[in-house]
């Protein structure tokens, strides 16, 4: 779909009719109506959504890497098929999300180029390495659980194409969560070697997990506007609580522990968990591309994109009729 030119959009403060259009737009969003691609929207709304969906899509295709690397080692036929299916879903989610972002006027190629040039972010958790099979179990259960809290909320958001993509994604994530929990139950009820592997993975992943929903509301500069426009419906801290309240008891039930330095305590009165605040400077440092394996992730994506180029070009040429002549 062709986007109208910038001049005609009048979507910035000061443009003719901006205030009137903004009032109508905000009234529609407040009513719970979805915003659709052809609608008038403030430029700031468009830019925020592009940024958000782009990061989300990048996270899916970067998230495919730590788990993908363990596909060859998956330790049963069922686990092997399920892990391929799960990583495949992540690639599929990337496809759906890039497409949703494209409806706002940015092409998938541009977005993938920005990712591999290090100009666009992806989720903090995928800047860390998956060192053992137990890491795959922890990612599939706890990180997917944390992501589902976020995605279920976003699926109720105001932008139609993003909400529709997320409905489909949440449906598939239900399989991911079950698959992840099932693997963790096997490990937690398995041999000492398996239990130790799982606990070790939890210990290493707990920090990235605590940081997953983003900086505390005290530090997050976007939250208020995003919530007014129903791009976001819950604060980062509220999402983190929702995750902790639901999943910490399940972890403890499996005999898992959380590293003591987090000082996690359940407050019976408020029914919430208290904890030592993560180091948000470190979080920012990591998502800017300085995590333990940030460079390797981007290099993997870059090489994969480069090596696929001849395939993409060949298919495009074959389809357009620009075929190479047949040999004699």
């Amino acid at each position: 779909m062709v986007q109208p030119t910038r001049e005609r959009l009048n979507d910035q403060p000061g443009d003719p009719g901006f205030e009137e259009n903004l009032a109508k737009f905000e009234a529609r969003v407040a009513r719970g109506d979805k915003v659709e691609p052809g609608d008038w929207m403030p430029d700031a709304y468009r830019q925020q959504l592009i940024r958000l969906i782009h990061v989300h899509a990048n996270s899916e295709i970067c998230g495919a890497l730590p788990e993908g690397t363990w596909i060859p080692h998956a330790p049963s036929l069922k686990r092997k098929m399920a892990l391929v299916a799960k990583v495949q879903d992540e690639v599929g989610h990337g496809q759906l999300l890039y497409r949703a972002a494209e409806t706002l006027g940015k092409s998938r190629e541009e977005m993938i180029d920005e990712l591999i040039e290090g100009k666009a972010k992806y989720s903090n958790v995928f800047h860390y390495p998956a060192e053992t099979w137990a890491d795959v179990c922890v990612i599939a259960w706890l990180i997917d659980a944390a992501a589902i809290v976020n995605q279920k909320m976003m699926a109720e958001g105001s932008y139609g194409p993003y909400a529709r993509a997320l409905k489909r994604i949440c449906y598939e994530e239900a399989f991911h969560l079950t698959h992840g929990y099932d693997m963790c139950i096997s490990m937690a009820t398995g041999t000492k070697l398996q239990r130790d592997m799982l606990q070790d993975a939890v210990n290493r992943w707990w920090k990235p997990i605590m940081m997953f929903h983003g900086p505390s509301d005290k530090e997050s500069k976007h939250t208020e506007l995003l919530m007014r426009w129903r791009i976001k419906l819950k604060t980062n801290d509220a999402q983190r609580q929702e995750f902790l309240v639901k999943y910490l008891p399940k972890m403890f039930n499996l005999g898992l522990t959380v590293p003591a330095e987090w000082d996690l305590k359940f407050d019976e009165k408020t029914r919430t968990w208290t904890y030592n605040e993560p180091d948000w400077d470190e979080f920012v440092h990591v998502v800017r591309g300085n995590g333990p394996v940030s460079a390797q992730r981007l290099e993997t994506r870059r090489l994969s994109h480069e090596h696929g180029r001849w395939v993409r070009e060949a298919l495009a040429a074959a389809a357009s009729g620009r075929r190479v002549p047949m040999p004699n």
Partner: protein
Amino acid sequence: MTDTQWQVFEVFHQPVRGEPHVHVGSVHAPDAETAILMAKEQFARRQACVNIWVVRADAITATTYEDADIFEHGTDKSYREAFGYETTKRAKAVGDSAEL
């Protein structure tokens, strides 16, 4: 850096015979043949499906949401609905009590 950005095909799937085709999303593909292959796995690898359509996105002409008011009814249009009539009662009055 940007290379071939393939065109977009909208994807419609039919879950069972007799049901209408429903829009489920879109794929990037160089041509319709490839779009079908890609759509099959991206949109029908779980849910039931008996048939898929792919349509080049730029072949679709749509109304705008600004014009959504053309679908609203400004005046009473109940005369073109079955519920707009009391004919069962009136038929009975003339001696016809069978189903209309």
